[in-house]
């Protein structure tokens, strides 16, 4: 039997190369072999659940080939992966029935004809459901969640573009069709707050809100400036409750600005500081990549914190501080086993706090007690975390 194995492997290889037609491997068996007949199946993801986690990895050492890892946070195991393109972005349909990668490819790897597109994947099989070209391209940048989004009803996909004037490309998920661009002069990023509305942060510290119809006829409204954009800008990542149209922006120096985007003209509350005088004396600051997130059911804000000087806004966090948004009070400090660049939360009653470290380790904590739940190591440079119902 042992001597026969290479032939079996070769026969299998031919079977794959030949497509659906199956080679008769049994003819390579000795005549007296007992047939087992095991056939390959293809796994399908379970129904989405709150502890389903998606991890976007830009794969910096091989930047033309991003990946999305799919993790079961309860079981602490990989349940799937999908390939993506150069500096890809990622978004999930509100019900996780589909997932989307926003990709750029060249026909010959690093050269040839450039193609920008959104790839639709079935959320259970990970089969490609559609591809829609983005004829105006997409902004190429180390991925941030707000570069690519889906409207709160799942109808439209929105892709931030800098070419070099700033705009948002709109794709209809129903018709699987590119509709055009919405110009957002002087602004960037996408914070969706309704089925036909999103807001963007602007270089002068204002917030621009675009409300559009099916033909992309758009109304723009601008509020602010609400931040001192020169001295203390807000991060690109924010804590969001999209279905309620609420966004909590966080500044480099620890100020929180809560915006109500549920109307065509948003309102933004005055800022409040995460930091007491004692915290400031110890040089505590926010820092990391996906630096802030929230647990919506309890209205808690989670922030990656470290001790550091000004302009250390990308320094990984050594602790996660938890704040009650309503009372603006800190309610917990979670000491991290390993410094983290990104955090996310499951949106259920016993939430997980997911932390991504610089050493490609995903460490999961109980978001209420701060106790470690598990640790997984995968990929090379996993970076952004998305949870079901995010």
């Amino acid at each position, binding site marked *: 039997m042992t001597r026969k194995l290479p032939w079996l492997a070769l026969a299998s290889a031919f079977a794959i190369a030949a497509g659906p037609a199956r080679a008769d491997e049994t003819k390579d068996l000795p005549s007296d072999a007992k047939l087992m007949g095991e056939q390959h199946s293809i796994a399908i993801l379970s129904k989405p659940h709150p502890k389903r986690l998606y991890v976007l990895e830009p794969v*910096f050492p091989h930047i033309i080939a991003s990946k999305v890892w799919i993790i079961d946070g309860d079981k602490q195991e990989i349940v799937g992966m999908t390939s993506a393109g150069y500096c890809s972005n990622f978004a999930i349909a509100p019900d996780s029935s589909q997932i989307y990668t926003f990709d750029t490819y060249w026909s010959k790897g*690093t050269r040839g004809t450039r193609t920008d597109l959104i790839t639709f994947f079935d959320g259970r099989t990970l089969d490609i459901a559609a591809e829609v070209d983005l004829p105006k391209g997409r902004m190429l940048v180390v991925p941030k969640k707000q570069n690519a989004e889906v409207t709160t009803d799942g109808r439209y996909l929105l892709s931030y573009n800098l070419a070099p004037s700033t705009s948002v490309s709109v794709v209809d998920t129903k018709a699987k069709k590119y509709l055009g661009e919405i110009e957002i002069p002087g602004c960037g990023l996408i914070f969706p707050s309704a089925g036909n509305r999103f807001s963007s942060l*602007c270089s002068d510290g204002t917030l621009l809100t675009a409300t559009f119809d099916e033909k992309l006829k758009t109304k723009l409204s601008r509020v602010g400036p609400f931040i001192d*954009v020169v001295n203390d800008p807000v991060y690109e990542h924010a804590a969001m409750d999209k279905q309620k149209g609420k966004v909590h922006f966080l500044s480099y120096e620890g100020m929180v600005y809560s915006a109500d985007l549920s109307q065509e003209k948003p309102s933004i509350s005055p800022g409040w500081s995460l930091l007491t005088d004692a915290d400031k004396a110890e040089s505590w600051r926010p820092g990391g990549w996906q630096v802030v997130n929230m647990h919506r059911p309890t209205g808690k804000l989670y922030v990656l914190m470290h001790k550091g000087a000004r302009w250390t806004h990308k320094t990984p966090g050594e602790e996660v501080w938890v704040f009650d948004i309503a009372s603006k009070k800190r309610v917990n400090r979670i000491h991290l086993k390993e410094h983290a660049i990104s955090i996310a939360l499951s949106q259920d009653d016993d939430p997980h706090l997911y932390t991504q470290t610089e050493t490609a380790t995903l460490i999961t904590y109980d978001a209420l007690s701060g106790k470690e739940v598990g640790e997984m190591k995968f990929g090379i440079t996993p970076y952004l975390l998305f949870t079901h119902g995010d």
Partner: protein
Amino acid sequence: MFSGLQVIDKVFETMSRRTAQKISRRSFVARIGATLAGAAVLPVLPVARKAQAAEDPGVEWAKRVEAQTKDPRACNYWRYCSSDGYLCSCCGGGPATCPPGSTPSPTSWVGSCLNPDDGKMYLIAYRDCCGKDSCAQCGCLGTAGEMPTYRPQLNNDIIWCFGGSSMVYHCSSAAIVGQI
């Protein structure tokens, strides 16, 4: 840990130096300038930074990392005060040389760095070398004065190969423009 790529960190060299540049760069800068002008925002110019040299993030960086002038393959080489990405010096090129087969972006951004040997400030042009997959050697991250992407001319995460033959990022270089 490699975090950001290239980019428009600091100010466009074209805007600050008014040196002769290729049309493509001028065009891009003019257009992005127009875009930002709509929001009535002007980038921080090197002249402004020079006036504030004592508080310059580049000076602070040089002190914090103990900047040196001998080893261009180390993250604390003095020219890299605003560099972000894989060092071309580790990839077959040099601080101002693209590795074989890659091409420098016609666009650049600038930072002002302290040379610890002479104690003087120099304007450095950061240019991406483009056209190949990421070099993946010597990833260095600097964030002094770095801003979010909605202020793109000051952000160091954006792929800064605009105006060149390829938008594929390979590595980061740093050429001395002059003493300031």
